[in-house]
C-alpha cells in the first residue's frame, strides 16, 4: 500500500491532464496517504503477522517478509518477489514518506510559477521518485532492490534536468545519471557474485545465518561483494570517488534538492550498507575501505564547503559530508548511529534547503552568497529556519544533529579506527564554521545584491518549514529512541568532545563573520580557495583521465568506422539485396502454371528427402 500509492499518483499525473489544483492534491495527497499507511504498517504489522515494532521498541527484531511470488527462477537460483519489513525499513519508509510529504507541500508553493504541464510533470516525477525509493527500501532481494535503485537514479535524472531548457541542468542531469550508472554496475556485479558464489540473491539467503556462514568461509568473496556494494553506495550517496555529480545536481529545483539530494536518495547508500551488515562483518577490509572513504569524504567535502560561494552548492557539500558520517558509521558497525543520523539529517538538511528556497524566491533565484546579506529582517521565517537547521547541522546540543552525529563519532571511537575518527572530528570542527559562515553572510550585515528583495511566501511554503524547524530542534529525541531501541548507549566522553568541537567551529565563524561583512571573507578568494572550490581539481582529473580519451576514441570511430567502413558495408549490403531481388523477381512470372510447377518440384524434393532420410 505504501508502495503503490505514490506509484498510482505518478501514473495518474503523467497519464491524465488535470487542473492544477488537482495535480497538487494528487501529488501531495498520495504521499500523505503513503505516510499514514506506513505508520499503520509500523504500528500494527506489515504483513500477515503483526510487526512488533511499536510494542517492543526493538529495532533489531528480525524482519517480516511478505512473499508475493517468484520473480524468476533459473536453475537453482530463485529470485523471489516480495517485500521485507523490519526496523531499518520502517525508519526509512517513515522518513521518505514523512519528509517527502512536507517537501511535496512545499513544492506546491515553490513550483507555482510553472506552467500547468510542467507542474503536473514535476509532481509525477516526484511521486515516481518516492515510489522507486520505497521499492528500494522495501525489496526483499537484491535484484528487486536494484529495480528501485535504478528507478531512483532515473527519476533523479528527470528531476535534476527538470528545467530542460537550461544547458547546465541538462549537463548536470546527464552527469548524475552516468555516475549513478557506475554504481548500478557495481551493484549488478555484486549481485552476480552472490549468485555465482552463494547461489542466492535474496536477503534471507545472503544476510541470514546460512549466508553469514558462507561469507565467513570465503573472506575474499565477502571482501569483493563488500567493495562492489560500496561502489554502488558511493555513487548513489555521492561519496569519494564518485561524488562529482551531487554539487552539479543543484541545478534542479530546490525542493528536489531537498528531497533527493538531502533527505532520501543520497541515503540509499547508507541503507544498502546498513542492510548488508553481514557482508561487512565478514570482511573487515571492505568495511575499512568503505568507512575510511566515507570519513575522507566527510572531511574533504567540509573543506570545500568552507570555500563555497554558491549557497546551494555549499549545502550539497554539506550533504556529502554528512552522508560521509553515515557511511562511515554504518560501515564500522555503528548502524543505529548512522541510521539515526539519516533521520535527523533528513529533518535539518531539508529544512536548510527550504530556507534557502525561500531566500532564492525572494532574491530572484540568486545563489551567490556574495550578493546576499542583511536578509534577516526581510525574511524572518527563512532566517529562523536556517538558524535552527544550522544549529542542528553543527551538532550544538540539544539540537537534532548533535545526538546522531555524536553517536556516529562515539561509535567510531569505540569500534572503528582512529584514522576515520580523526577525519570526522576535523569535519565536525569545520561543519559549524561553514554553515555559520553561510548564515552570517546570508542574513547578517547589509544587503549586497542589485535586485529588489521580494519576500513572498505562500502558506504551503511556510508551514512545512515550520514543521521541519520544530523537528530540527527536537528531532534528537527520535535519534535517541532509535539508538536505545537498537541497544546503543550514549557516551558522555564523546559527547563532550563533540560539543567542544562544535562550539569552537561556531566561535571561529562568529569571530570572523558576525558582522555579516563580505570583506571578512576575502581570504577565500585566492588561488587556494579556487583550487578547493573545484573539488581539488577533481573535475580536471576526470576530464583528463576519462573524458578526453573517450572523445578521442569516439572521434576515431566517427571518422574511420562511421565515415568509411560502415557506409561501404551498407552499400554492399544494399547492392547485394537489390541483385538478389532482381534475380528472384524473374521467378515471379505471373504464370499460375509456373507456380504450380514450383510446388510440384517442391513436392518431389520433399519425397526425395523423406525416402533418403
Amino acid at each position, binding site marked *: 500500500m505504501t508502495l503503490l500509492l505514490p506509484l498510482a499518483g505518478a501514473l495518474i499525473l503523467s497519464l491524465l491532464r488535470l487542473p492544477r489544483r488537482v495535480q497538487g492534491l494528487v501529488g501531495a495527497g498520495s504521499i500523505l496517504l503513503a505516510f499514514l499507511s506506513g505508520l499503520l504498517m509500523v504500528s500494527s504489522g506489515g504483513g500477515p503477522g503483526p510487526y512488533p515494532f511499536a510494542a517492543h521498541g526493538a529495532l533489531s527484531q528480525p524482519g517480516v517478509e511478505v512473499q508475493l511470488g517468484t520473480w524468476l527462477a533459473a536453475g537453482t537460483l530463485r529470485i523471489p518477489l516480495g517485500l521485507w519489513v523490519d526496523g531499518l525499513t520502517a525508519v526509512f519508509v517513515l522518513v521518505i514518506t514523512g519528509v517527502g510529504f512536507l517537501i511535496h507541500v512545499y513544492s506546491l508553493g515553490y513550483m507555482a510559477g510553472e506552467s500547468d504541464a510542467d507542474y503536473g510533470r514535476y509532481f509525477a516525477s516526484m511521486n515516481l521518485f518516492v515510489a522507486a525509493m520505497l521499492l528500494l527500501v522495501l525489496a526483499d532481494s537484491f535484484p528487486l532492490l536494484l529495480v528501485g535503485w535504478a528507478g531512483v537514479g532515473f527519476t533523479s535524472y528527470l528531476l535534476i534536468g527538470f528545467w530542460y531548457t537550461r544547458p547546465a541542468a541538462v549537463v548536470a542531469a546527464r552527469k548524475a545519471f552516468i555516475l549513478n550508472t557506475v554504481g548500478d554496475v557495481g551493484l549488478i556485479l555484486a549481485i552476480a557474485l552472490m549468485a555465482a558464489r552463494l547461489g542466492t540473491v535474496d536477503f534471507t539467503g545472503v544476510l541470514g545465518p546460512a549466508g553469514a556462514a558462507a561469507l565467513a568461509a570465503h573472506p575474499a568473496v565477502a571482501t569483493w561483494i563488500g567493495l562492489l556494494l560500496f561502489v554502488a553506495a558511493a555513487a548513489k550517496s555521492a561519496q569519494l570517488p564518485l561524488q562529482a555529480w551531487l554539487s552539479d545536481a543543484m541545478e534542479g529545483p530546490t525542493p528536489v534538492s531537498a528531497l533527493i539530494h538531502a533527505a532520501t536518495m543520497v541515503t540509499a547508500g547508507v541503507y544498502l550498507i546498513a542492510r548488508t551488515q553481514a557482508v561487512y562483518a565478514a570482511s573487515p577490509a571492505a568495511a575499512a575501505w568503505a568507512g575510511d572513504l566515507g570519513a575522507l569524504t566527510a572531511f574533504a567535502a567540509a573543506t570545500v564547503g568552507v570555500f563555497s560561494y554558491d549557497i546551494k552548492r555549499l549545502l550539497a557539500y554539506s550533504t556529502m559530508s554528512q552522508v560521509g558520517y553515515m557511511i562511515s558509521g554504518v560501515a564500522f558497525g555503528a548502524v543505529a548511529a548512522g541510521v539515526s543520523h539519516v533521520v535527523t539529517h533528513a529533518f535539518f538538511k531539508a529544512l536548510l534547503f527550504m530556507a534557502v528556497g525561500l531566500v532564492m524566491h525572494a532574491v530572484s533565484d540568486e545563489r551567490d552568497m556574495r550578493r546576499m546579506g542583511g536578509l534577516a529582517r526581510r525574511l524572518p521565517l527563512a532566517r529562523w529556519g536556517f538558524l535552527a537547521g544550522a544549529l542542528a547541522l553543527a551538532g550544538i546540543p540539544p539540537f537534532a544533529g548533535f545526538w546522531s552525529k555524536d553517536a556516529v563519532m562515539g561509535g567510531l571511537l569505540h569500534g572503528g579506527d582512529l584514522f576515520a575518527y580523526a577525519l570526522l572530528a576535523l569535519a565536525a570542527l569545520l561543519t559549524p564554521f561553514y554553515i555559520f559562515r553561510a548564515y552570517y553572510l546570508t542574513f547578517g550585515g547589509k544587503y549586497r545584491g542589485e535586485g529588489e528583495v521580494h519576500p513572498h511566501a505562500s502558506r504551503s511554503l511556510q508551514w512545512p518549514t515550520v514543521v521541519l524547524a520544530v523537528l530540527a530542534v527536537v528531532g534528537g529525541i527520535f535519534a535517541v529512541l532509535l539508538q536505545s531501541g537498537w541497544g546503543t548507549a550514549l557516551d558522555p566522553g564523546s559527547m563532550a568532545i563533540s560539543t567542544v568541537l562544535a562550539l569552537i567551529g561556531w566561535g571561529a565563524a562568529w569571530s570572523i563573520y558576525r558582522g555579516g561583512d563580505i570583506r571578512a571573507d576575502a581570504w577565500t578568494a585566492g588561488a587556494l580557495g579556487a583550487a578547493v572550490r573545484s573539488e581539488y581539481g577533481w573535475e580536471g582529473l576526470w576530464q583528463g583521465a576519462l573524458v578526453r580519451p573517450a572523445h578521442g576514441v569516439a572521434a576515431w570511430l566517427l571518422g574511420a568506422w562511421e565515415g568509411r567502413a560502415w557506409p561501404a558495408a551498407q552499400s554492399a549490403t544494399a*547492392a547485394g539485396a*537489390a541483385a538478389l531481388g532482381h534475380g528472384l523477381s524473374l521467378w515471379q512470372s505471373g504464370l499460375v502454371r509456373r507456380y504450380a*510447377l514450383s510446388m*510440384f*518440384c517442391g513436392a518431389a524434393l520433399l519425397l526425395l528427402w523423406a525416402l533418403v532420410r
Partner: protein
Amino acid sequence: MITFFIVAAAAVAAAIGVIAARNAVHSVLWLVVHLCSLAVLYMTLHAEFLGLVQILIYAGAVMILFLFVLSLLSARSAPNAAAWEQPRGQTGLAIAAAAVVAALVLVGAAVGNIAAPTQGAAGGAAAFGTVQTFGQALFGPYLLPFEGTALALLTAIVGAVALSAGHDDAAGRGLPATVAAEPADGAPIDVSHAAPAEPVATGGDR
C-alpha cells in the same frame, strides 16, 4: 485381382482422357468415367458408403456443376488449337518432376516398410466399412472434423455467391479496375535510398 487390374486400367485411361481431351466437355465426361471406376475400387475395399458418395456427389452433383459452368462460358473457352502451347521449358520440367514423383512413390510402395495388416482387418471383420461403422466413426470420435466440413461448405457457398454475383451490378468496382490501375510493366525497385548516409556532424558540449 482381375477386377482390380481392369478397373485400374479404366481409371488410368479415363484420367489421361481428362487431361488430353481437346474439348472441355469431353474432359468432364472422362472425369465421370474416372470417378465411377474409383467408386468401384472403393466398393472392393469395403468402403461402401464412400463409393456411393463418390457416385452421388462427385460423379453426379459436382460434374453437373462443371457442365453448367462450361455451358455458361463455352464462347470464351481457350482456343483449342493452342491448348498445348507452353511457356519455355514448362513441358520438360513438368514431365521430369512428374516422373520423379511417380518414381519415388512407386519405389516407396515397392521397398517401403509397410506394416503388416492389423489383426482382424484383413481377416475380414464382417462389419468393417459398413454404413453403420462408418456412421459410428463419423459421429463419434470424428464429430469435430465433421462439423468443420459443414463450416467449410458454408464458407464455400458464401464465397461462391459473393464472387459470381457481386460484380455484375457494381461494374467498374473490384478486380478489373484494380488491375487496370497497375503499371504495364513492373518498374525495377528503387534502390537509390541505399546511398551511404552523411556522417553525423560532431557536436555536443561535453
